[in-house]
């Protein structure tokens, strides 16, 4: 087997500058955990208050907040490269596209040429 000489030259791509990765302090972890628990309590509590259609939106807003906290701190995205942000964002962006465009069909079906109207 030909011994391929191994280049020590840095690859063209920018390496994530992390050495041993970003070490988040324990205080932050516990604070986030506490926030998540509080938000869970909030979402359950609010569900029993009649806010009309706003119930759904409040529930979703709380869920989005919780997910954001997990992503930013537990998953270290706050300390990650722009590329990581981009990957996460594009996942959610295309999910939003899928839901929005499909709903555009279902919501507007009755607007024109409704059978029987």
């Amino acid at each position, binding site marked *: 087997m030909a011994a391929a000489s191994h280049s020590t030259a840095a690859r063209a791509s920018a390496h994530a500058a992390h050495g041993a990765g970003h070490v988040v302090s324990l205080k932050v972890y516990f604070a986030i955990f506490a926030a998540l628990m509080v938000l869970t309590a909030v979402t359950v509590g609010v569900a029993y208050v009649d806010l009309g259609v706003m119930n759904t939106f409040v529930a979703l807003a709380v869920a989005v907040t919780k997910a954001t906290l997990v992503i930013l701190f537990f998953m270290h995205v706050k300390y990650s490269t722009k590329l990581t942000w981009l990957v996460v964002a594009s996942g959610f962006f295309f999910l939003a596209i899928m839901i929005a465009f499909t709903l555009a069909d279902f919501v507007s079906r*009755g607007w024109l040429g409704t059978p*029987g109207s």
Partner: protein
Amino acid sequence: MLERLGLMPAQASTMAFQVDLLYGFLIAVTAFFSLLIAAGVIGFSIKYRRRSEHDRTPHIHGSNLLEVVWTVIPLAITMVMFFWGAHIFVTLKRPPDDALQVNVVGKQWMWKLQHLEGRREINQLHVPVGRPVKLTLTSEDVIHSFYVPAFRIKQDAVPGRYTTTWFEATKVGEYHLFCAEYCGTVHSGMIGKVVVMDPADYQAWLAGESTSAAAAAPADGGSGSLVASGKALYEKHGCITCHQAGSVLGPPLAGVPGSTVALQDGNSVTADDEYLRESILNPQAKVVKGFAPVMPTFKGQMSEEQILQLIAYIKSLGGDTAAAHGKTGS
């Protein structure tokens, strides 16, 4: 000419000519760009063919001006296509108010049709020339698609829903009717014909006196109008028991179609055909404000055709209570 050469299907509806005109435009654009590209590729290939292994080539990076040109011009042309196509499409989605009404139920593997006046057909549709005809389609099983090439119309018949399309025939004759959405074994046998007749012949046919033996209505068809059949069903299933005026069990139905109905859960809904169908088959889904969810389902007790008859009857009940329901008009 093109029709005789076998390059164009018969043009037998008001829409056919418009669609073909658009087709002509699309063909012209396609021909222009195909020839342009072909000329470029073939011309350059000949002119700049390799003459020697030592040929030198220039280093041409590109031209922003050209990029803009061949982005903007195609974009402009496609926008013309979009608006032209959209115009025809929206027209197809809005049947004229004076259209004749035919209900179409697809089922593996036949088309069952019924005219508003009651005459039923299978795999045939008789229509008068020069009158718009509105089709309301649904399916008993899988998705089918009602396709008449000579009219340039096609519409899926989707189970559990109503879809509509319309046409106005311009030439007396017989035309292909195809199922265009794959529906199983005999998909290619789910075909029939559309018979376009003079108005007088059509009236005679409607009355069951057609001279053509082939056009005889199937034996199973009742001869009453849609409304009459619907009324019979209304009585047979005892709808009147709960839905009479002043009833506390169910809302009166006169004037409901087309109005906005307030629901128990605080929402409201426009009482279109879909809503009426759902309320017959799945009464718990949208309960009218002020009434208890006590209506039983009629799922399995009525065919899609019978539901359409019942809806026709409910619509015929008139609009005397429309004001009470806050009629929105259309």
